[in-house]
C-alpha cells in the first residue's frame, strides 16, 4: 500500500516537474536535425517545383562552400511552410508566390516572419497549350475559342468534356471557378502533384497530342516542351478578390523571400546572404534545367552555375 | 479390527486435529451462483435440471471430509466429477460458493489476502497436471521460484533448490529449460518446485495423467517413497483407480460433485456404497487390495490358532493365498504375536470371488464392516447414469 502511494506521489511530482516548471512554446522549437555536430546550420524550405530547388541548391552551395554553414533542406508545401517558418523549423523560404492571408498573420500580426526582399524572378500563372498545337490552330490562344477545341482535349479522365489539367493541390489556382464562370465545356482534372503533371505533359508532347494545362513561368519545362499561353480575360487589380466569382487571368507576381524573424535578427552572415540573394529568370532556368533534364544532382548543378557566374554571386556575400 | 473401524468412523481425532477440514463445501459456477447452496429445492436438483433451471453448474456439492496429518488422501472421480475444482477450493485458487474449509483449525475462507498468500507460500503447495512450469527459466530457477516469491535471496534459494532437485533425481539438469525435458522429468521439476517451499500439505492435481504408463509408475513410486521418507500430508487428485488404490490411505470417490464414498481402498473395493462404485471397482484385482482382515474368521479352536504360517493383518489377500498355498493349511493372522483369527482357502477365495458380502450378510458381522460415512448415500443408481467417459 505504502509503495503504491510512493509511486503515485513520484509520478505526480515527475509530471509536475515536467509540465509545471515552465511553459514550452513549441512554435519556437527548431528541427532536431539542425546544428548537428557543432556546425552552424541553416534550414531551407524547398518547394516541390524545380525552380525552387534551383534557388535552394545555389544558396546551399554558397552557404556551405563560401560561408562555412551546414544546410538542411525540408520539402514542405507552400502554406504549411509559412507555419514552419514562423515556428523556426525552417529558417527561410526563397520563393513565395504570394499568400496575402499568411503574410498578414505572420508578418504583420505576429511578427514571427520577416520579409527577405525580391528574388528577382517574376512569376506568372496561366493556361498553356503546346506550341506545336498553337501553330496549327492559332485561334486556340484566345479563351473564347477554347470550346471549339474541347473535343480535341478530351481524355478518358475528363469524360465528355475537354480536359484542363491542374497540378499539385498546393498551388494557387482559380481554375475550377474560371471554367465555371467563363462557361467553358471543360473539366478540371487534378494531376495531384507537379511530378505527375510534368510526366503527363511530356508523354503528350512525345506523341504531339494536344493538351491544355495550368502552368507557370519561370519553368524549365518550357525548354523541353515549348508552350504558348492562352489569353484569359485580362487581370485587373482586385478581380480575383472573390474566389467564387473569379473570371480573369492570373496576375504577374514578383517572387518574394521570407525569413524567420529570429533568424533574420541573429542569423548573421547567412541571413544577410539570403537577403542579398537575387538572380534572374534566366539564371534560375539554367540551374533548373540542369537538375530536371540533365538529371544532375542539385549540388552539381549549383557548382556548375557558381563556377561560371562568379560576378553575380560575389555581390551577395556579406 | 478396531483400527479399521476407527479409520472409517471417527473424524480424524486419532492423529490429532485434521490438517484440512472441509464441511459442506459448494462450488457453483454460473449466474447468481450463491443462491443455489442455500436453497434446498435447487440444491436437490440433478446437474441437468439445475442447469436448465438456473444456468448454473454445481462442480462441488455439499462435500465434507477431513485430511489427517501424514496421510495420503486421494480424491478420485471421472472427468467432470468436480475433483479438480475441489482441490483448488482448498487454497481458494477457486473461490468456494458455500461451506467451510479449515487448515489446522484456521478458517481458510475468512483469510484476508496476505494470510491467504502466506497459506499458499508456506503451508500448501500444488503439483499440476500439465506441470505449469515457466518455459523461460531453467530447471533450477523453476524449482527456486516459490522461494523467490517468498523473497528469499538468490544464493540461498538456489542452494535450497539444488538440494530438492537432487532429491527428485534431476541432478545435472539444473541448467536445462523445461522444453528440453521429457514429460516425466518436467513433472519431477513440478514436484521439486512444490517440495522446495517445504509445505505442510502437498496437493496433486492429476499429476501423472499426462505421462506414459511406465513413467507414471516410476512417478507413483517416487511419491510413495517421498511419503515414506518425509511423512508429508498429501491430497492427491486422480481419475485412475489403480493409482488411487496404490497411493491412497483413504479415498474419496466423487461423482457429479458429490462424494459417493469415502474410505480406505479396502472399504471401497470390499464394500462399495452403491452400484456406481461397484461398477467402478468391478475389475479391480481384489486380492491385491483386500487385506486378510476381510477374509479371516475366528479360529475354530486353539489348535487352529496355534499352527500354520503367520500373516500380518494388513497383508493383502494375495500374499495370504501364497502363504496358504505353500503351507497347505490355513494361516494365522498375527498382530504383535496375538492371534486375531485364521484365514483358509475358502475365505480367501470368497474374497477374490466377491461373495464375501453375501456370506457376511447372511452370517456373522463382517470383519471390515460397512464403512461408516459422514454423508448420505448417492441418490441415483449407476444403471440410469450414462457411461463414464
Amino acid at each position: 500500500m505504502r509503495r503504491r502511494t510512493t509511486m503515485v506521489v513520484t509520478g505526480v511530482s515527475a509530471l509536475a516537474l515536467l509540465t509545471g516548471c515552465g511553459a514550452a512554446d513549441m512554435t519556437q522549437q527548431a528541427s532536431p536535425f539542425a546544428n548537428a555536430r557543432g556546425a552552424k546550420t541553416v534550414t531551407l524550405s524547398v518547394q516541390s517545383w524545380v525552380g525552387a530547388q534551383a534557388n535552394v541548391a545555389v544558396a546551399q552551395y554558397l552557404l556551405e562552400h563560401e560561408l562555412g554553414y551546414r544546410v538542411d533542406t525540408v520539402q514542405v508545401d507552400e502554406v504549411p511552410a509559412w507555419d514552419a517558418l514562423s515556428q523556426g523549423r525552417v529558417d527561410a523560404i526563397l520563393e513565395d508566390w504570394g499568400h496575402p492571408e499568411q503574410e498578414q498573420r505572420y508578418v504583420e500580426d505576429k511578427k514571427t516572419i520577416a520579409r527577405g526582399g525580391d528574388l528577382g524572378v517574376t512569376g506568372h500563372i496561366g493556361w498553356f497549350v503546346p506550341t506545336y498545337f498553337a501553330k496549327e490552330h492559332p485561334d486556340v490562344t484566345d479563351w473564347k475559342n477554347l470550346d471549339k477545341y474541347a473535343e480535341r482535349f478530351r481524355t478518358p479522365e475528363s469524360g465528355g468534356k475537354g480536359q484542363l489539367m491542374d497540378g499539385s493541390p498546393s498551388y494557387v489556382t482559380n481554375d475550377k471557378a474560371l471554367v465555371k464562370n467563363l462557361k467553358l465545356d471543360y473539366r478540371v482534372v487534378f494531376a495531384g502533384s507537379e511530378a505527375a503533371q510534368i510526366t503527363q505533359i511530356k508523354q503528350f508532347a512525345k506523341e504531339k497530342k494536344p493538351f491544355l494545362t495550368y502552368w507557370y513561368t519561370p519553368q524549365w519545362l518550357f525548354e523541353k516542351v515549348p508552350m504558348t499561353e492562352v489569353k484569359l480575360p485580362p487581370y485587373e487589380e482586385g478581380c480575383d478578390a472573390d474566389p467564387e466569382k473569379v473570371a480573369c487571368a492570373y496576375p504577374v507576381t514578383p517572387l518574394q523571400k521570407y525569413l524567420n524573424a529570429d533568424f533574420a535578427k541573429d542569423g548573421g552572415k547567412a541571413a544577410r546572404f539570403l537577403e542579398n540573394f537575387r538572380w534572374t529568370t534566366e539564371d534560375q532556368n539554367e540551374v533548373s534545367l540542369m537538375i530536371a533534364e540533365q538529371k544532375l544532382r542539385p549540388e552539381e548543378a549549383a557548382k556548375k552555375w557558381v563556377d561560371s557566374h562568379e560576378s553575380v554571386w560575389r555581390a551577395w556575400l556579406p | 479390527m478396531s483400527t479399521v473401524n476407527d479409520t472409517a468412523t471417527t473424524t480424524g481425532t486419532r492423529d490429532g486435529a485434521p490438517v484440512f477440514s472441509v464441511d459442506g463445501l459448494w462450488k457453483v459456477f454460473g449466474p447468481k451462483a450463491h443462491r443455489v447452496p442455500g436453497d434446498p429445492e435447487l440444491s436437490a436438483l440433478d446437474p441437468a435440471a439445475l442447469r436448465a433451471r438456473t444456468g448454473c453448474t454445481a462442480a462441488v456439492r455439499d462435500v465434507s471430509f477431513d485430511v489427517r496429518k501424514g496421510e495420503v488422501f486421494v480424491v478420485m472421480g471421472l472427468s467432470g466429477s468436480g475433483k479438480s475444482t475441489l482441490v483448488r477450493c482448498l487454497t481458494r485458487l477457486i473461490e468456494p460458493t458455500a461451506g467451510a474449509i479449515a487448515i489446522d483449525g484456521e478458517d481458510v475462507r475468512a483469510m484476508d489476502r496476505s494470510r491467504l498468500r502466506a497459506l499458499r507460500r508456506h503451508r500448501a503447495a500444488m503439483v499440476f497436471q500439465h506441470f505449469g512450469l515457466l518455459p523461460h527459466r531453467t530447471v533450477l530457477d523453476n524449482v527456486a521460484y516459490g522461494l523467490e516469491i517468498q523473497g528469499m535471496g538468490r544464493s540461498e534459494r538456489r542452494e535450497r533448490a539444488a538440494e530438492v532437485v537432487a532429491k527428485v533425481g534431476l541432478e545435472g539438469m539444473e541448467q536445462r529449460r523445461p522444453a528440453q525435458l521429457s514429460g516425466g522429468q518436467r513433472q519431477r521439476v513440478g514436484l521439486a518446485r512444490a517440495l522446495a517451499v517445504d509445505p505442510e500439505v502437498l496437493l496433486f492435481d492429476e499429476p501423472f495423467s499426462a505421462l506414459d504408463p511406465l513413467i507414471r509408475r516410476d512417478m507413483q513410486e517416487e511419491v510413495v517413497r517421498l511419503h515414506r521418507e518425509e511423512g508429508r500430508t498429501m491430497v492427491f487428485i486422480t481419475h485412475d483407480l489403480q493409482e488411487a488404490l496404490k497411493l491412497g490411505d483413504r479415498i474419496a470417490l466423487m461423482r457429479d460433485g458429490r462424494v459417493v464414498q469415502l474410505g480406505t481402498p479396502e472399504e471401497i473395493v470390499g464394500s462399495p456404497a452403491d452400484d456406481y462404485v461397484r461398477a467402478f471397482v468391478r475389475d479391480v484385482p481384489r486380492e491385491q487390495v483386500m487385506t486378510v482382515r476381510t477374509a479371516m474368521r475366528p479360529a475354530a479352536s486353539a489348535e487352529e490358532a496355534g499352527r500354520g504360517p503367520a500373516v500380518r493383518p494388513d497383508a493383502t489377500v494375495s500374499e495370504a493365498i501364497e502363504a496358504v498355498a505353500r503351507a497347505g493349511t490355513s494361516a494365522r493372522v498375527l498382530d504383535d504375536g496375538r492371534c486375531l483369527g485364521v484365514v483358509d482357502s475358502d475365505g480367501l477365495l470368497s474374497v477374490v470371488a466377491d461373495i464375501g458380502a453375501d456370506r457376511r450378510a447372511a452370517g456373522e458381522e463382517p470383519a471390515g464392516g460397512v464403512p461408516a460415512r459422514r454423508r448420505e448415500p448417492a441418490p441415483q443408481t449407476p444403471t440410469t447414469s450414462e457411461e463414464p467417459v
Partner: protein
Amino acid sequence: MATLTAPTRKAFPPGLSASPAVRKLAALALIAAVLVPLAVTRWGGGTWPAALTVDLSEPLGRASDWIIDNRDSHPLFLYFFGHVSNAVVVAVRAVYLALLAVGWAGVTAVAGLVAWRVAGLRLALGTAAAFLACGLLGMWVPTMQTLALMAVAVAASVVVGALLGLAAGLSDRTDRALRPVLDTMQVLPAFAYLLPVVLVFGIGVPAAVLATVVYAAPPMARLTALGLRGADKEVLEAVESLGATARQRLLTARLPLARKELLLGLNQTIMMALSMAVIASVIGAGGLGDRVYQALASVDVGAALAAGIPIVLLAVVLDRVTGAAGARLGQEPAPNARALWAYALVATAAVAVAGRFAGRLEWPDGWVLGIAEPVNRAVDWMTAHLYSGVPVVGGTADWAGRFTTWVLDPLRDGLQWLPWWSVLLAVAALAWLIGTWRTALTAVLAMAAIGVLGVWKPSLDTLSQVLAAVAVTLVAGFATGIAAARSDRFERLLRPVLDVFQTMPQFVYLIPVVALFGVGRAPAVAAAVVYALPAVVRITAQGLRQVDAAALESARSLGATSGQQLRQVQLPLARPALLLAVNQGVVLVLAVVIIGGLVGGGALGYDVVFGLAQGDLATGLVAGAAIVCLGLMLDRVTQPTGRRTKKGA
C-alpha cells in the same frame, strides 16, 4: 420470396447452408420494407439528401485558425503539447547526435554486432552490408535522420502500445473497450492520421513522430494483450498457487510468457513505423522519406529509388533480425553469452574510436555510387516503348484509357446513381452475410456517417476505384497465389520479389505508374494493385499450402485430377485464408488509392492532399474522417466473424 421461406426453415435439416443467409436477408428485407419508404418520402432518393448532412467546414476552419493563433500563448499548448513536442525534439536530436558521433563505421559495427548476437552470423553480415549500401547510395545522413526518428517513434509506440496492451490484457472491460478501436486503427490508411496531428503540432518532426506513434502503436497493444491473454492458464495457476502477488505474477510469469508476442509486436511496430516514415515526409519528417518525396517532385525515379532502397534495406534487416530473435526465444543461450556480448561491445568501441581518429565520421563523398541515372534511363526506355503504339496489345496508355472508360467510369457513375438508401442496404446485406449483425450495423453507420459529413459523392468515387482495384488484385493475386502454391520453384522465385514490393514505400510506385498510365484514376488503381498484390499472393499461397494433407491425399486416392483437387478440396478448405486475403487486399488497396490523390486519383485522397497542402484543415479533416469511415465499412464488410476464422485456422 425470402420472407416466405423463412418460417419453414426450421423444418429443414440444420446442415442446409443457405438457411442462416436466407434468414438474415429476410430480416433485412423486412427492415428495409419498413424504413425505405419512410426515408424516401421524407428525404427523397438519389444522392445523399442535403437535409441529412452537417457542414463541418465552418467550425473546423475556426478551430484550426484558433489553434494557429493560440499555439504560442494558450496554456494547453504551452504546458502540455509544447512539452510533448519538446520531448520529441530533444529525444530525436539526442539519438541523431549519438549516431553521428559514433560515425558510419561505428554505426555499421554496432548494427552488425547486435544482429550477430541476437540473430546469428548470416544476418549480421546482411545487416552490415545493408548499412554500407545506405552509405554507398549517398544516403548516409538521411538514413541516420530516419533512424533517429524511427528509434524515438518506435520506442514511444512500444511504450504506449505495451501500456495499452497491459491494460487490455489484465482487464476484461478495458479489453472490450479497446479491441474494436485497435482493430479499426489497424485498417486505416496512414494518410488519415496526418491531419489531426498537423493541426495541433504544425509541420515538423514532432508531428511526424506522433503520427507514426499513433499509426504504429496499435499492433504492439494488440499483441501485448494477446500475449497476456494467451498465457498458459495452468502456469498462471501454478504461480498463484505458490502465493505470488499480482505484481510478481505479472513480472515473473505473465510478461515473460508473452515474450513471443511482445517481440512480434515490436517487429510489427517497426515495420509500420518505417512505412509511415515515408508518408510522414509530407508533414516534415525529413530523412529518407523527404528525399523520396523531393525526388518525386522532380520526376526523378532514380533518385527516389536511391532513397527508397535504404528504407527497404532497413525494413528487411529490422524485420529479419527481430524475427530471428523471436525464433531464438526459449532456446538455451550459448554458455558464454555474456563474454560474447562483451567482445561485441569492445569491438564496436574499437571501431568507433578508430573511425573517430581516422577522421572518417562522415561517409566519404568519393564512395557514393550513382544509381539514379541508369534507373532513369530504364524508366525512360520503358515509358518510351510501352506507353502507346505497342503492336497488337496497344500501349499502357490505351489500356488505362479503356480501363477508365469501361470500368472506372461506369462503376463510379453507377454507384453515384444508386439511391443512397440502396447503397446502405447493400452494405448492410453484405456485412451481415459475411459477419454478424454487429459488423453490419457498424458498416451501415460508417457509410451513413460519410453521407452526413457531406462527402457522399467523392467517397463513392473513391469506393469505385477501390472496388475496381480490389477486383484486379484478387484475380491476379489468386492466380499467382495458386501458381505459387503448386510450384515450389515458382514460389522461391517469387518470394524476394514479394518482399521488396511489400516493403517499398508506397510513394515510389507513383511516378512510374504515371509514366505508364498517364494522370488520372487509372494510375492510382494500378499503384494500388501493385501494392496490395504481394500480400494477397502470399496469404493465398500460404492458405493453399496449409490445407490438410490428409484431405488432399484422400481426394487423390479417389482419382481426382489436379484441377478437381484444387476446386473441390484446396479452395474450399482454404476459404478462411482466401477471405483474409480479400480483407487485406481491400485494406491495402484503400491505403494506396488514397495516396493516388497525388497522381490524379481525385476524390477523398485529393481532398486530404489539398487539406495538407493548403493548410485547409477543414477540407482535409472531413475527407480524413470519410476515409476512416470508408475503411471501417470496407473492413467490416469483408471481415468474417472471428469465430469462423478461428475454426478454419
